């Protein structure tokens, strides 16, 4: 085990006797906080103990114990292991927990998600609307007693689909002959859709009053879900005063593919190919995050050669992601196609390597618990060496020579402020955006996983927090990744590629694990609760894009609409990961 366990380094129970108790369930860690004192304890955690970065908020539905739990994971931006604290409430509607939005505005979207999918009401949250589903949707789908239209059984693998030699479709079993569930006696003709009344209401509430004395009109603009510059099916609704953005709400869920619900039904290994499709540019790092989380639960070591292979494929992924980022950013800024054609040329070479070692270009499904699924053959290793030592450094320099001092680009990006260090931490931003704001927080260094502690590299950091820095930090990171790659290729030992025997169903002892990695977009984390059965009881993905988007409103308000596309591009969002 090279990943540090989530042992708490502070004794919260001694600081708040009677209010906070250690979580004594076998395999669990952290502290359980009394609901009424949550805000008080959280304030102490942030201000006294220095856990300033609240990365994840999620709910767990313990149906057999008739309890709902809200789990919070806090970290120090100076590095080190984190602190998990939980609130348990009886599973009786309304399930209410105080909101932490005043302490960490970064919980905004995550609390809305917990309300949407689990039905946990956060009292004090100013804008508690559904986020991934739409207003008017019936029920909270991640609750264990909620069943969708195509529900067959609680867990996979399902029983035979052709018991008597006769095949049936999932559609045949549903009364509506489709993936639908309607309440009893529902009449579609009498249904009045909510539309977006609540959304526009929320937007109106946040609009600041015009104090200039001039009578000007506000314009509401919908951007997306079909828009060439939103990187997928993202929708932003904004109020404009002239050309200035005065209010903005992101609307998500247009690619909500029910990752968590499907993941809780799958066996542990079945989830691996699903993680590929989270952030579809970086399937290797998604695999990495999931693998280390389950390995943490299983307490198994990783084969030495596999550790190096993992680093090599993750860093190659990071390089191609940042190259594509530069290409799409330039696309969004108006330099149509040419930079992205350059970026895709390099990406194809990296995808060739992935195809050779895993069999697929994009959806690699390459990691297994305890190692990886296939070895890197010698000829592919030679190709990687050629890329890392010659081609990619030269192409990175070329990219920088073409773009970084381009006059149009500089005047467009320099000085357009995104976010400062303090706000970035409060809004739970991670990844390059946080580092461009001047916080040298990189999980590879701050809380090392895998074997990142063996390599010599610098955490890329820039200090202005404007668009230009956000662009330049990507190039810095490509260079650092190449540095890691050079060392890894040199040091990689021979040996087995998996410490375990390949099996379809792994044995996972009961417990919880929060495993996180530095994905190219930021912190990608998985929260998995096991009850000892072949399927996870709770499987939650903490995506970087989704949490980073919390700050979109803060960043955009006051900027011009023309810069909005560039500001959004800096988050490098991928909707597959964002909506899951």
């Amino acid at each position: 085990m090279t990943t540090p366990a989530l042992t708490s380094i502070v004794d919260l129970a001694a600081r708040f006797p009677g209010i906070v108790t250690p979580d004594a369930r076998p395999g669990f860690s952290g502290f359980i906080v009394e609901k009424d004192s949550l805000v008080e304890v959280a304030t102490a955690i942030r201000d006294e103990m220095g856990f300033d970065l609240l990365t994840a908020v999620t709910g767990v539905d313990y149906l057999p114990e008739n309890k709902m739990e809200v789990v919070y994971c806090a970290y120090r931006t100076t590095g080190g292991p984190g602190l998990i604290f939980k609130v348990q409430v009886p599973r009786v509607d309304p399930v209410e927990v105080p909101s932490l939005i005043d302490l960490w505005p970064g919980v905004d979207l995550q609390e809305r998600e917990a309300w949407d999918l689990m039905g946990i009401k956060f009292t004090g949250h100013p804008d508690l609307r559904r986020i991934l589903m739409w207003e008017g949707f019936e029920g909270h789908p991640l609750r264990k007693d909620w069943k969708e239209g195509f529900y067959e059984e609680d867990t996979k693998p399902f029983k035979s689909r052709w018991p008597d030699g006769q095949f049936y479709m999932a559609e045949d079993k549903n009364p509506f002959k489709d993936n639908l569930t309607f309440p009893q006696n529902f009449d579609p003709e009498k249904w009045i859709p909510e539309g977006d009344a609540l959304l526009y209401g929320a937007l109106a509430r946040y609009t600041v009053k015009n104090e200039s004395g001039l009578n000007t009109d506000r314009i509401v603009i919908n951007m997306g879900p079909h828009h060439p510059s939103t990187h997928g099916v993202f929708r932003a609704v904004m109020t404009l005063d002239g050309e200035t953005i005065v209010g903005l709400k992101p609307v998500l869920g247009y690619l909500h593919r029910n990752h968590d619900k499907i993941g809780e039904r799958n066996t542990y290994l079945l989830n691996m190919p699903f993680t590929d499709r989270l952030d579809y540019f970086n399937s290797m790092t998604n695999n990495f995050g999931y693998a280390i989380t389950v390995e943490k639960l299983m307490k198994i070591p990783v084969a030495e050669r596999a550790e190096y292979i993992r680093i090599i494929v993750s860093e190659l992924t990071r390089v191609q992601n940042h190259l594509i980022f530069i290409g799409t950013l330039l696309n969004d800024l108006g330099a149509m196609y040419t930079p992205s054609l350059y970026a895709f040329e390099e990406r194809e070479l990296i995808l060739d390597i992935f195809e050779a070692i895993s069999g697929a270009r994009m959806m690699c499904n390459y990691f297994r618990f305890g190692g990886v699924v296939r070895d890197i053959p010698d000829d592919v290793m030679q190709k990687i060496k050629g890329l890392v030592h010659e081609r990619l450094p030269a192409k990175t320099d070329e990219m920088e020579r073409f773009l970084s001092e381009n006059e149009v680009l500089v005047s467009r990006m320099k000085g357009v402020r995104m976010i400062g260090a303090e706000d970035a931490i409060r809004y739970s931003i991670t990844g390059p955006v946080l580092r461009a704001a001047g916080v040298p927080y990189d999980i590879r260094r701050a809380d090392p996983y895998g074997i990142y502690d063996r390599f010599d590299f610098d955490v890329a950091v820039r200090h202005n927090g404007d668009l230009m820095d956000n662009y330049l930090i990507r190039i810095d990171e490509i260079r650092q990744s190449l540095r890691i790659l050079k060392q890894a290729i040199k040091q990689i030992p021979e040996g087995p590629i998996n410490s375990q025997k390949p099996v379809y169903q792994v044995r996972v002892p009961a417990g919880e694990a929060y495993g996180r990695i530095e994905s190219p977009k930021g912190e990608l984390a998985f929260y998995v609760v096991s009850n000892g059965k072949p399927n996870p009881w709770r499987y939650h993905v903490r995506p970087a894009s989704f949490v980073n988007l919390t700050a979109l409103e803060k960043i955009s308000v006051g900027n011009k609409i023309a810069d909005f596309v560039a500001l959004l591009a800096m988050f490098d969002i991928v909707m597959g990961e964002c909506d899951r």
Partner: protein
Amino acid sequence: MDNEKISLPQYDIPEDMQHAIAVTTLDRLYNWGRRSSVWPLMFGLACCAIEMIAAQTARYDMARFGMEVMRPTPRQADLLLVSGTVTKKMVPAIVRLYNQMPEPKYVVAMGACASGGGPFKEGYNVVAGIDKFLPVDVYIPGCPPTPQALIAGMIKLQEKIDKQSYKKSRWYDKKKQDANYVPVPILGPDLIDPRRNEEIRIAAAKRENEG
């Protein structure tokens, strides 16, 4: 007589004029123009959209087949490439985009998700295939299909265009012009397809009797 044969020249051209005269049919000329300038909608849903972009780039270069002009607005596009998982929340927007496209228009379901739900079929927010709402011309298998597979699918679409005749086309027939209008689905307690209102009402009423 089918289109292939119609398009064959039936006239003997004198040898000294062969370099100056070509005989063809109106259908063939018309289809040649359409098949070589398919303008897809610049519309990506999920993972497949990345392979769609890759198919446009230097290595695969879909432009060789006359399909590089991606238009972001549906009013200038004649091909809806459904590239990714169709969710219930997104499907009203997709149907609206389709309705805004001018005829003649085609739909290609790219990948397992758009064809039938794919790995996410069981999900509560997932529509099991865009063909539940829109008429699909070509299905491309794969998760995601490689750029080569996408190009193969586009060539299939070109073959389909080749076989159409302007005389029988619905888009010149005033009576059939609205034939492809699809009513926009409504987001209710679950996704409501207005064409199936009656069915849903009966099934929902029956549900109570059973329970």
